């Protein structure tokens, strides 16, 4: 059983919803990421999503776009991101880590080499935003062969046939994008998400995460009753941008925000 499957099984038994915070690796600088990952776990994260910076993150909003720019200014590469996961694993062998990024840096690294290196570093899932299953990249198969779960997005505009196809290719969990837009956008409609997730659940037994537009504890709490996992990205990255220049305060502020999300979500499920 993969670390992701194990974690979701645990949570299901405990009647809890996974909190999945996202940070961009290398933001604000390379040395900040591993301490941030530990702080996120301590504050109540169940799964970590680590963004691999890309120069042209088309599906991301301005907050994560700028985080990528900060990370790239320090020359953060995919190899650096894998080194961060490896270092994180020295102290934490239980929290699943999912890489989220774009296809081009993976291909530049070498698809096969990437699958091997992620497994070696202790990565559990890989979400390649701009690689739909139709493109038949060998990546998903290579990852599965190494025990890494290929994670895919589902959108409000995904039709029934593609929903089926994506769910067949995916492993670990599927990630439902709650709105039409980019990461960090507003206007999340919880009732609509609930209706859509019922459709998704008919297509797959995989846990269903939701994200894109979860900005505060209130929204996270509302979604806790609906989804198996709640992904929070831009709202955390916003705080990294705000406090990035003072390390101690950065860790305190991000930790406090994630604790607040955790408490709100747990309270909602009681």
């Amino acid at each position, binding site marked *: 059983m993969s670390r992701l499957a194990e974690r979701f099984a645990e949570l299901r038994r405990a009647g809890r919803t996974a909190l999945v915070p996202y940070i961009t690796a290398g933001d604000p600088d390379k040395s900040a990421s591993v301490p941030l990952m530990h702080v996120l776990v301590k504050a109540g994260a169940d799964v970590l999503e680590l963004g691999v910076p*890309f*120069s*042209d*993150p*088309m*599906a991301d*909003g*301005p907050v994560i*776009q*700028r985080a990528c*720019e900060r990370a*790239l200014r320090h020359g953060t*590469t*995919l*190899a650096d991101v894998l080194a961060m996961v490896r270092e994180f694993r020295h102290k934490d062998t239980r929290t699943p880590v999912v890489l989220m990024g*774009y*296809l*081009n*840096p*993976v*291909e*530049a*690294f070498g698809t096969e080499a990437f699958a091997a290196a992620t497994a070696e570093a202790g990565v559990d899932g890989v979400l390649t*935003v*701009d*690689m*739909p299953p*139709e*493109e038949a990249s060998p990546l998903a198969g290579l990852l599965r062969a190494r025990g890494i779960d290929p994670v*895919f*997005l*589902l*959108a*409000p*505009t*995904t*039709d029934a046939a*593609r929903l089926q196809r*994506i769910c067949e290719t995916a492993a670990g969990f599927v990630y439902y*994008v709650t709105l*039409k*837009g*980019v990461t960090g*956008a507003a206007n999340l409609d919880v009732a609509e998400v609930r209706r859509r997730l019922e459709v998704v659940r008919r297509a797959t037994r995989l846990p269903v995460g939701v994200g894109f537009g979860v900005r505060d504890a209130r929204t996270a709490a509302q979604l806790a009753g609906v989804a198996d996992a709640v992904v929070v990205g831009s709202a955390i990255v916003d705080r990294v941008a705000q406090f990035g220049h003072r390390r101690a305060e950065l860790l305190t502020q991000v930790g406090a925000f994630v604790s607040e999300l955790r408490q709100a979500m747990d309270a909602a499920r009681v």
Partner: protein
Amino acid sequence: MSRPIEKTASFRESLRRVPDANGHFGAYGGRFVAETLMGPVEELRLAYEKYRRDAEFQTELQRDLRDFVGRPSPLYLAQRLTAECRGARIYLKREDLDHTGAHKINNALGQALLAKRMRKTRLIAETGAGQHGVATATVAARFGFECVVYMGEEDMRRQAINVYRMKLLGARVVPVTSGSRTLKDALNEAMRDWVANVDSTFYVIGTVAGPHPYPMMVRDFHACIGEETRRQALSTEGRLPDALVACVGGGSNAIGLFHAFLDDDVKLYGVEAGGEGLASGKHAASLSAGRSGVLHGNRTYLLEDAAGQIRETHSISAGLDYPGVGPEHAWLKDIGRVSYDTVTDVQALQAFHALTRHEGIMPALESAHALAYAMQLAPHMPPQQFLVVNLSGRGDKDIHTVASHQGIEL
């Protein structure tokens, strides 16, 4: 002993039957977009499949190409330039005479007519030099669409006149401050707008790149350039040209010219922006100096660093200043059907002056790249041969750049 049967043109597989159903040109093209964009892209594909065969759509398109754009554009024999080069006769396909001053309007018009049928009310576009932005703003005014154009902050500064033209036409021009603040970043922003406003909005991509069906659709809307050239060459010279030359940034004017000739015995040359020379690293020659990768929804040749991050590019011509290229060009390069080469900033400027002085035609700096290459090519071809250069745009927009290279402050 039996002789091997020679393949003739009629038995050869046509090179014009691409892409496949999923938008692949050999290994290139495709639909590499986030799941949030798959729905909109599929909706567009279905609409285009329907209307490209629709007689009423084609009638309206042809009428506006004639009465609004001014097609067909002339095929002009550049006699004094030919005499200067001492070789093959040089013809110019005069896309600079199209309404708004460049070929871009052919495609903007086609996409606007499609948007109308898809009941969209808002057009968005990305632009580098501003020519595609002006073309989109123009068709938006023509049909009464709301219009938003994304343009890199850096490009807005370089192309202030085109920014004002777009505003006069009623478009809102949004400065893009992310990344390198140029064309590629404007494309990212336009994609973000599209995914958030897909119910009302049609994204008018300005070149033969992006997710399927864009590379095919934009090519089809520009294919009139080559079809006209074919007819015009047959009527004036009684035969097809020996060679065609076009500049390649994203590659829309080149594909537009080449497409009708892909199955013929005609040499095809695509000219990329060599900037300050390939060795300097300051160029925009993705086919000549890049490698295969994935950006902006398609697999193609890209300029990128060792870690797969997209590189900043340089060209004196803002319209060629793009780190990728249309996937059909990537395929045509690999199969060897088109020869791709580069021309530097300095060579393009020389060609700009040569055409202006010898023919009284001021070319866009983009088109000056094709011209510079043709001027190198012609002397190596016998005088009974002839070649066609796609003069894809006029040079008025570039006079500030030309002046500043001469040390003149306007």
